[in-house]
């Protein structure tokens, strides 16, 4: 039994063509999968279905063997924008998932500090989001998604609006944290090298269908040098060709 399995999922907005057409996908425990696709190919919709935010018209999603019909506390979600609450401090933003469930304990605060330390923001606990750079905001969003120790993480192009160097740093952080916690990840992006660098397995989506899947046989942990490795580039090229647009 896979950790997360998406079975024959279809979705259409009323009276329109299918956004997702008969998608199937399996993720084993602890694996990092990337779903690639151009804008508007339905990848965000698939992610929302996979996380229980959106019920599919057809098909089912199973998390650890149980059918997923609504969001679960087992899952963390990082959105395209950091979606931080401007009126709360960095610390309180990270603690939000806990606050919504119960009273926070000193242990929760320790955990939040530890997470913020992990993403390099331990000096910013009492700042507000408006005082942070885009990269720092994304880090806070990442820490917030991790506070409940999710066994499954969904990320929707979380680093798309960041500059190249910051993005690389955050990719490193994400890989490090997920390896540490053994988190299963479904990551969505339109950036081929990001997908290949992060993932154990990549898939390409086009017009609501998964048209290509491949394992990424690169060593782990990944290093910066790997980005310039011939193997790495070959994989990127292959994916690029699948994505079309004349190469």
């Amino acid at each position: 039994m896979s950790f997360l399995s998406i079975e024959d999922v279809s979705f259409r907005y009323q009276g329109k063509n299918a956004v997702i057409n008969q998608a199937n996908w399996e993720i084993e425990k602890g694996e990092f999968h990337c779903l690639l696709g151009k804008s508007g190919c339905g990848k965000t919709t698939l992610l929302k279905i996979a996380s229980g935010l959106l019920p599919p018209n057809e098909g089912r999603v199973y998390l650890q063997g149980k059918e997923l019909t609504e969001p679960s506390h087992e899952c963390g979600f990082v959105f395209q924008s950091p979606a931080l609450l401007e009126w709360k401090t960095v610390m309180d933003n990270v603690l939000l998932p806990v606050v919504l469930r119960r009273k926070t304990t000193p242990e929760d605060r320790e955990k939040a500090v530890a997470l913020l330390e992990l993403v390099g923001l331990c000096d910013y606990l009492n700042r507000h989001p408006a005082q942070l750079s885009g990269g720092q905001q994304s880090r806070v969003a990442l820490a917030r998604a991790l506070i409940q120790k999710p066994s499954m993480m969904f990320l929707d192009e979380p680093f798309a609006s960041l500059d190249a160097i910051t993005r690389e740093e955050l990719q490193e952080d994400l890989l490090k944290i997920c390896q540490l916690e053994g988190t299963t990840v479904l990551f969505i992006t339109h950036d081929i090298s990001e997908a290949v660098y992060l993932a154990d397995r990549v898939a390409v989506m086009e017009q609501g269908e998964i048209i290509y899947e491949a394992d990424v046989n690169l060593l782990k942990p990944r290093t910066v040098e790997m980005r310039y490795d011939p193997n790495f580039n070959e994989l990127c090229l292959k994916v690029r060709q699948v994505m079309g647009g004349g190469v």
Partner: protein
Amino acid sequence: MMKNVQLYSFLLFIVLIVSWEITAGNMSELVLPAPSVIFFTLIDGIKSGYFLPHITRTAAEIVLGLFLGSLFGFVIGLLMGEIEFLRKLLFPYVIASQAVPKLALAPLFILWFGFGMTSKVVITALICFFPLLENTVTSIQYMDKQKIELFRMLKASRWQTLIHLKIPAGMPGILAGLRVAVVLAVVGAVVGEFIGGSEGLGAVIIASQAMMDTPLMFASLLLLTIMGMGLYQLVNIIEKIWLKPYKKGSKK
């Protein structure tokens, strides 16, 4: 540069006062009393305790009316923002009631609630109600979609979403409504006193008109202006403190 502008602004004030003083020198006090005359009338009135009951009365009406009107506006705004059925049911009436000149209802309220304080508080509350209602309804409805999804992902209840997301996120808009309400509150209370009442600064203005005591009229006007400005500044301060974290680039 900004400092200079403030200085010029103050100089302009001095120039205006001085030219008023000079102009008033050639005119009857009945038409245009000089600032100095108004000032001494004001000081005398405060010293003798003449103004005190009127100030307290008007201030009480403003504060009570503002509080009640804003509170009801806010709560009903929340209900209408949250419950679509209620919003669709009531919105046509809210829009229609906007067209009613609410101050024109003042005589009716005097008839219903008497010449005492109640009628003025009701008028003030009614006039403060609408800006809060409208701003609250619109402010809590248009939320960042990803924040709403975040709260759904975290399995927040409707109540939690309201308390932790919609109200704080809508606060800038809601406070803007309060700022409008504050200014209107002074108008509401004074108009109420114009129409019926023997206490309050509005009543003093009407009485001074009857007595042809123009300096007294100006002195009351000055007091009302100070009260209005004080309240407005208070809301500004609340806004500044509350909304500080929302602003980009604010330093701790």
